[in-house]
């Protein structure tokens, strides 16, 4: 436990000593809750259409596939046509792309990024490394099956899929969203303890709250 996170006694300006517990005082420790869609199906379909039409990807290249995602924004592939856009902060992003192998260290950051995104949010895994560890199947520091740690909506095959494959993949994702089957966020909320247990089993220096708002 890092010293700055340790419990400590602090003297206020009026001389009164009181205890500051960083994990409790600095972070909100509320668990995620299942968020149901709009009551009327038509409104939910319309929202799903809008969500599929403006798919904002979080600019967080986790593995070797990130290099493939850059050309999406260039004239040749031009993802803008499909309403897809980079967003620098997870707050405003809807899609987290895990591109290739995911080391435990990056998993910790990916979890934090994923949890700071707003419901509904989608995860897309690239290549076999996110399915069964791929060629890093016996590596000591990568995770073998992404689905145990984050709810994945779509996998795109290819050691590392080319931009066209990514675009096709995103079209499939759009179909899922329009169909209303991309409810990864709610799944994460329902089986939150299971996910958390898997994550804590792999990440040993756990110095953050259970759910990073």
């Amino acid at each position, binding site marked *: 436990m890092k010293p*700055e996170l340790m419990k400590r006694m*602090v003297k206020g*300006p009026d001389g009164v000593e*009181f205890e500051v517990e960083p994990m409790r005082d600095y972070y909100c420790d509320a668990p995620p809750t299942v968020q149901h869609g709009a009551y009327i199906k038509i409104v939910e379909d319309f929202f799903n259409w809008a969500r599929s039409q403006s798919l904002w990807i979080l600019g967080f290249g986790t593995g070797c596939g990130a290099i493939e995602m850059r050309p999406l924004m260039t004239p040749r592939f031009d993802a803008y046509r499909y309403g897809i856009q980079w967003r620098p*902060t997870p707050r405003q992003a809807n899609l987290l792309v895990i591109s290739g192998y995911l080391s435990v260290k990056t998993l910790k950051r990916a979890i934090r990024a994923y949890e700071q995104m707003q419901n509904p949010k989608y995860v897309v895994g690239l290549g076999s490394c996110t399915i069964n560890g791929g060629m890093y199947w016996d590596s000591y520091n990568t995770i073998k099956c992404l689905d145990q740690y984050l709810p994945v909506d779509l996998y795109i095959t290819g050691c590392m899929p080319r931009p066209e494959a990514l675009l096709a993949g995103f079209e499939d994702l759009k179909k899922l969203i329009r169909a209303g089957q991309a409810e990864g966020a709610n799944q994460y909320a329902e089986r939150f303890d299971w996910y958390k247990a898997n994550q804590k089993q792999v990440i040993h220096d756990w110095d953050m709250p259970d759910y990073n*708002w």
Partner: protein
Amino acid sequence: MTSPLYIIAVALAAAFLLGLLREQWRSLAYPVTLAALAFMSWLSASWLWALASGSASPVDIYTAGTAPPFAINLRMALPEAVLTLLINLTGLFSALYLKSALLARGRRGMAVLLVAIMALSGIVLTRDIFNLFVFLELVVIATGGLVLLSDHAHALSAGFKYLVVSQVISILLLIGIIFAYHATGTLNIDGMAEAVPGLQNAGASQAFELAFFLMFIALVAELKPFPANGWALDIYEAAHPAFSAIFSAGAGTAALYAVDKLLLIGGPAWLDMATGVGIVTFVAGNLLALPQSNDRRLLGYSSVAQIGLILAVLGQRDILGEDTYFIAGGLLLSHAVAKAGLFWLSGLLAGRQLVDWADLRERPMPVFAFVTFAAMLSGLPPFPGFYAKWELVHHLAGSGRLVLLALVLFGALIEAGYLFRWFGYILKREPPGEADFCRVIFDKPHRVLPVMVAVAAGWALAFVWGELASSLLGRSNLLLALPLLFALSFLLLDWLPAWVKNSLAIAGLVAFFAATWTDYDALRMIFAIIFTLGGALTLLASYHVHGRRVGFYPAAMLMFAGMVMLIRADTSFDFFAAWELLTVGSYFLILRGKHSEPHALSYILFSLGGAFLIMAGFAIAAQGAPQFALASLAHVAAPFAPWVFLLLAIGFMTKTAAIGLHIWLPGAHAEAETDVSPMVSGILLKAGLYGLMVLLLAMGKQQLYGIELTHVLLWVAALTALLGNLMAVFQEDAKRLLAYSSIGQMGYALFGLALMNHLGWLMALVFVINHYIYKAMLFLAVGGVAKRTGTREMYRMGGLIRLMPLSFIAVLVGIIAVSGVPPLSGFGGRWVFYNAILASDYRLPMVVLFLAGPIAFLYLFRLIYTIFLGQLKDELRRVKEAPFWIVLPQMIYVALLIAFAVVPGLALHRVDTYLNQFFPEGGLSWAGGEITSNYGYWNPVAIMIIVGVIFCTVFAWLLFVNRRAQPVKQFNIVFSAERPFRPETTHFAWNFFAPYRKALGFLTQPLVTIFWTTVTDLLHTAGDLGRRLYNGNGQTYAFHFLAFVVIVFFLVGL
């Protein structure tokens, strides 16, 4: 009436009687001495009472039964009665003070003291020149004896130096007397005065002139003139304080009166020599007193300087005419009482350094005594020095002696400087010595009594001089002014608990406004409301202090009294008296802050400097008349009018801290106490503006060497606004930021005035009202936060919005108002500003002001962000909301701001029509809710409603859409997928506008501070160089005296 001769006879009889008593009966000898001194004081007091009440007329006492020229005669008229009373009283109380020393020395010491006092009275009474010499020698020998009473290590060498120089003086005096006798044939002063014009041939009158020169230079030497006064300063430093009191008050007075008698003989030819020596001594004495650290030596320099000033006044008798005795008397009496008091006070302390006087702080009484004496010496109202200085300055200006006027004011400013610096040490410095044994001797009543009597005498003199001024010269007696009496009454009520006094103060202010609001015109009504009701509102915040809070309420009420009298004053004298009262009151208020001592000193120096400029301006404008109605400033003669305008404008601008005269404001307003800052910043700055308004209303546009003075004022105002706001941006201390912002806002108001058109003035008034409300609110808010968080550094605070919501609301409304964003009243000010500049014919100054506008945005956002938003630090997690009594006035101010934003007409309508009579075209028309000028229109109610409606609909829409927002804590931020380290490292506040400093930082180089520090350093080095003149060697002092005689001889050019 018993003959005044008994003063001499009784003293001598008592002295010889003491000779008879045996050594052992020492305890009997002391009462005899006191009885003799008491009888002498009673005698002169009865003569004074008889002469003053007219029941007796001035009388000449013949000795040896023959008429004067052939025998010695004494005269007892009003001046003699006053001076002998002063000498005898000083002698009596010094004898009381010297009880232990006299009892230790035995009866001989008492006899010497008695003879000394008798000799001093003799000098004042005698009309015979040789008899004057005899009494003078008696004083010399008595001084030689009494110096030995002191246990100072160097008393002996001081006494010896004194005797050496006195020998030389007596030689010159004797030769002068004998040759004068030979030329005129008589030794009687009046006889000589008649004989002098009768000297027919040139030879005789030439011989007499020479003889008179010797006599005159010897007597002037007794007054310790500048180059030749080393010997006197050693006496002041080494002698027993009680004797120094006699030496300074008594000997100085007697010698001065002797010189005055001699001037009767000499006639007008010698007046300018006396003035020359006097003024040189005054300025040089004060200058050399600056670097002094020993208290008694400083008092020595100060008394030498004061006596020099009085000599200069005597030298001006040709233009002062019958006021000479009023002025010289006022200065002399306040000098004598103050010096005697200060020396007696120094006797109570063991330490001799100025800082050791900090021990006086334990009791309020000695501090009050010191304040009285310092005020008397520096000539502050209501003491006699103030009336005297006013008359002197007016006569000098009337007869065009401006260089002398400047020197007198310059010397007085330096004197006020080192006195108030000393007072600052007393209140604020820690005494260096160990604090175990009590170094202040309060238990001995016979030492404390004289000081108290001196204080009582000081205030009595203040009242008497007030009466004299009102009866003789038509000035109003300050002590009878109701507001001042109300303020001084708080001195007596200081033992009450704070909240009682606070309620009394508020009630007093409100009652005064209720009683007098009918006789203000629209313009003064605004200032009256701000000074009285505004003051009462700010005083609400003073309820948060518990205990007795000694000294706060007299100072605060003095300031408010000064401001109220300022508005009601219609003659120049009342105006100036009120101006000085509020300066003094605010100085004591500011001095209460913990670290405010250096800043309070720079404040009082700038303010007094400004006040002296104003006095000089009034004097020149008066053209010899003792006082004049303010309105008649309009028809001042052409060649003087621009100079008067310049002097008065600079004087008033020291109070509104225009650029160049602003360096006192940040320190003074930042270091003042929580509830003093709003008073001083929100209310006091308006006094300067009121002064400028009176000036501009009366004198309008002035030309000096072809330059339009109001145009220069415009540029100064614009620069002040820009640089004030710019410097505020880079401040780390919250209160300093607000202080610099005040400078900027005052720049805006000054700009409005300098435009000299209808809307310009209206803008200035809007700024006056706005600035009072939001500055008082912001200072209270920041003060409350500083009280709770224990610091004023903004980067140490942060995230207090949850813990201090009310303060946040106050500051939020405040910054919206200050920045001029539409819904609130700041926008009104900006709108009037735009219409004003369209109407005016100048073009360029507006550009500077346009830049100053948005800069205000920077420091306002910095203020609210670094304190209330951003990351909450660990030690501030348990901070409570500001005390109730500090938050309440803020909420009232928020309501006031919103009211003034929605209905500006309430305050501005009447004053807008009132301004029509000075600036007919360009007025506003107030149709319903809409205000139209001849350029644009503005509907405050509509704006407020529209913005409110839009805001509420959007807010409602967001609430509906974003119902279930999850409240999170301070570290739930997207820190590029990492964990923030600590609140201190994630709160961006220190050097908030770093890029801005790179771009425009060069404009905030502290040039003005450097300029003023070099000026003060130059004065100190001049003082140090001058001090090297006194190398402590008695012979050198004899050299100095002879050199002085020879130089004056050649200068007089006989």
